[in-house]
């Protein structure tokens, strides 16, 4: 390569280097999640947990039909992979807890902390990013109402008409010595859900 070709090549590559490092640095600071993937932030396992926190590995959902029959609903019955099923069960739990203030309060109490927690701040750069027209153009759709959507999806696919869903979990709690048994939680959700009307 001639010196002038070399200089041009160096300049072009320098632009690539600056772009790659700049985009990644932006992702580190602005934390845009998957919006700018593959330049993204890395918050894996970053939430603090505490003595006595509940760990819920799996949820189980049982439906009650109009005839009073109980039907266990598995991910296969729902036609989705496990993580979608878990999101559905979590959304059902949340729907039930909205109307059950006591359960919610108990859950808060279970989240004991030994050390003071940091409050999560929306940093100025992140606030600004969210307000830009570009972000509004690309931003994710609003979260679908999973609880209502998948419940309806199951009823259509299986032919069952449900009046109620029961969601159970099988939790353990974190202790200094490892895991310890914790009482399971069971909530009931009356159907139809408000989102499915």
């Amino acid at each position, binding site marked *: 390569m001639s010196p002038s070709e*070399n200089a041009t*090549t*160096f300049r072009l*590559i*320098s632009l*690539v*280097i600056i772009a*790659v*490092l700049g985009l*990644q640095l932006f*992702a*580190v600071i602005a*934390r845009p*999640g*998957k*919006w*700018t*993937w*593959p*330049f*993204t*932030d*890395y*918050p*894996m*396992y*970053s*939430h*603090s*947990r*505490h*003595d006595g*926190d509940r*760990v819920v*590995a*799996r949820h189980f959902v049982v439906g009650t039909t109009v005839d009073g029959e109980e039907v266990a609903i598995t991910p296969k019955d729902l*036609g*989705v*992979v496990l*993580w*979608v099923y878990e*999101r559905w069960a979590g959304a059902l739990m949340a729907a039930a807890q909205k109307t059950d203030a006591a359960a919610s309060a108990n859950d808060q109490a279970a989240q004991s*902390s*030994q*050390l003071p*927690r*940091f409050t*999560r701040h929306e940093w100025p750069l992140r606030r600004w990013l969210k307000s830009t027209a570009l972000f509004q153009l*690309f931003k*994710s*759709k609003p979260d*679908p109402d999973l609880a209502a*959507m*998948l419940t309806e*999806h199951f009823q259509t696919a299986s032919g069952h008409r449900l009046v109620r869903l029961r969601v159970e979990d099988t939790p*353990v709690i*974190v202790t*200094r010595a*490892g*895991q310890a048994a914790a009482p399971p939680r069971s909530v009931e959700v009356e159907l139809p859900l408000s989102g499915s009307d």
Partner: protein
Amino acid sequence: MTVKWWNGYWFRPAPYVDLALVRLFAVACQLWLLLAWGKFSSETLEALWALPEPLYDPITLLRLFLLPWGWEYRPSPQFMAIVFYVSVVAGLLAFVGFRTRLSLLVFALTNAFLVAYAYSHGDFHHTEAPLIIALGILALSPAGRVLSVDQLIRRWRGGSDEDDDILTAESPLAGWPIRLVQWLFVLIYLSAVLSKLVFEGGLDWLNGYTLQYYMIQDTLRKGTLLGGWFSQHHYLVMLSQYLVVIFQTTFALAVMFPRLRWIYVPLGLGFHAGNWILLNAAFPEWMALYAVFIPWRHVFTRMLRREPEGRRDPQLAT
């Protein structure tokens, strides 16, 4: 002065063989994930397609890829299967080094497409991004100059032998991709530690219970080799949390002071192996990319007891 420093850092001559080895590790790892791990197998693509339409929310990169078909276009499993097979063929060509730049570029783009498609259905993980970026970077570099079919073709056509010696050949364009991926690691680990201590967690992230919680959770959900057992040892877990934070905070030292890689590379590989064993959180792409921290020519010349003339201690410096 600044330009001189910049060019001196990024375009310091480096051996082609180091870059070629990074190409081999990166491509082999991604091919292994595609072919042996069943990433984006027809079952996976069908399962994604079967998810209800409202769950499909294309991420930015996928939207850009699919612009010709429309803003909200959702590719069918057949469409994705074609992308998959193109990716496999490109990967095989990139591995053997045939039309290396082009095959690497196609391999990087098709893999980015596949991952972006999967992450447009609600789920999101962090394992693939560094390798996808690295493949894109390699596509812009002379990663197929040696240890490649391209090199054989060049020799067969009577190309210059002097530039083609596997161990001695070097170029100002062979080092920047390696250094860039190294700095990418620094920023990634910085993001991880900032998330733990500033953005999401806080100083109480280091309380021991945090990692116990995740080990118990992942053991119950996915099964782990030793996570259940290790989670019973509170102080050991707490110590490992401190080690992780120190490692991630100071990782830049491994790039600035190459001799420290004797500490940081085994520590980093151990850290990722530990994640695999204790949390069933597999990051093979990251482990493969640690190839950027190995001074391959140095290793080979030591093994062959042959120091290239006039090229003392051929890095450690990359």
